[in-house]
């Protein structure tokens, strides 16, 4: 695992950008671009990332970037990859599709599934901030149960869909789950993905101070707490072989009880209206999922 002092010092995300203070995307995008040495072209749909990228005529990111329509991120990446191949430039740069949870798991899932089935040659990174944050915190298919959004005022009733598992079912060469709170974990997974051909999918939990209603200073602390609770699990599936990574691997190895989800839930305004029963339901759901991951880790599949 790369250490922080081993991360490249070249910066591709520029200061003075338009992202909210404490936005997890910025932490992650810095190491994503470092892992690709800036030799990349991004396809980006309408999203918080567009805001970070900035308004014409100035860009806040020092890598090639193509803005694309909301449902089209994966197809746009497939087109860029095909175009670069046709132009004999495919070796010059990695194509990186990067979209939020709504852009990936809701409106973008058709194009993503098609590209995954074809095993098109690009990295798809979903930054999952668990709702439509750029439009004002509406619920997405990846919003957790209990979260109040501007379209689930009493708290969302359903658990989020498990997008990395959906992507696994496409039998692509690389699927990973990571968190913007662990920049070196993000870096290592993107660096590994860079060396693989075909569709590589990385799902990245990305805390959002404004949408989740917490103090911006806590972006990293809450991201890590989600991992401590087993709500977010760091893992990768390489050619069908599953393994926990980083802190999640250490937690599984230690074998002790995880931090109760109630601790995580108590940190965020979006969960304020949750009842004790609702919290218990989330705990049961998390326990079951965690047990599943640990079993997979042991079985290595």
């Amino acid at each position: 695992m790369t250490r922080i002092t081993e991360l490249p010092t070249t910066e591709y995300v520029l200061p003075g950008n338009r992202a909210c203070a404490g936005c997890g995307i910025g932490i992650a995008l810095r190491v994503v671009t470092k892992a690709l040495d800036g030799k990349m072209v991004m396809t980006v749909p309408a999203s918080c990332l567009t805001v970070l990228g900035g308004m014409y005529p100035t860009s806040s990111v020092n890598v090639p970037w193509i803005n694309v329509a909301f449902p089209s991120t994966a197809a746009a990446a497939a087109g860029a990859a095909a175009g670069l191949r046709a132009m004999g430039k495919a070796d010059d740069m990695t194509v990186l599709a990067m979209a939020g949870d709504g852009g990936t798991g809701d409106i973008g899932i058709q194009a993503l599934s098609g590209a995954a089935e074809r095993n098109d040659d690009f990295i798809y990174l979903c930054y999952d901030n668990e709702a439509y944050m750029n439009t004002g915190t509406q619920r997405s298919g990846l919003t957790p149960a209990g979260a109040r959004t501007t379209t689930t005022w009493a708290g969302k009733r359903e658990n989020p869909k498990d997008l990395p598992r959906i992507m696994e079912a496409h039998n692509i060469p690389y699927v990973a789950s990571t968190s913007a709170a662990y920049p070196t974990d993000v870096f290592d997974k993107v660096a590994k993905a860079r060396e693989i051909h075909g569709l590589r999918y990385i799902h990245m939990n990305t805390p959002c101070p404004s949408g989740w209603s917490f103090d911006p200073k806590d972006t990293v602390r809450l991201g890590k707490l989600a991992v401590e609770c087993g709500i977010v699990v760091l893992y990768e599936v390489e050619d069908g072989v599953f393994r926990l990574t980083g802190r999640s691997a250490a937690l599984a190895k230690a074998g002790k009880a995880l931090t109760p989800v109630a601790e995580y839930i108590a940190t965020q305004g979006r969960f304020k209206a949750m009842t004790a029963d609702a919290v218990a339901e989330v705990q049961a759901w998390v326990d079951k999922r965690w047990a599943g991951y640990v079993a997979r880790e042991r079985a290595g599949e």
Partner: protein
Amino acid sequence: MSAHEISMSRPSVGEAGATGDWRNEYPVVAAETCVAAKQGKITCQICWAHCPDACIAQGMPPVIDLTYCKGCGICAEVCPHHAIEMRPEAAHGVCAPAEGGVK
């Protein structure tokens, strides 16, 4: 304006202006507590790695660019040695660099 001009941006710092303006609190790094400063080598740099805005330059101690630092306070939160303190801005507006930096 060329007939074939398209909307295509060039990279620059400060697309959103001097985002230091957004701050309510500004970070101050205590060199006597910062492990990199104390050891006189590029070690730790956890604050640098976790800054969402690339406003911290690696150093002994790391140096924070207060023109653009939005004051989120993540650096202070992640510092394992509590070497960064968030101090209230006296008034809104871009702080003079002299107010920040190393104390």
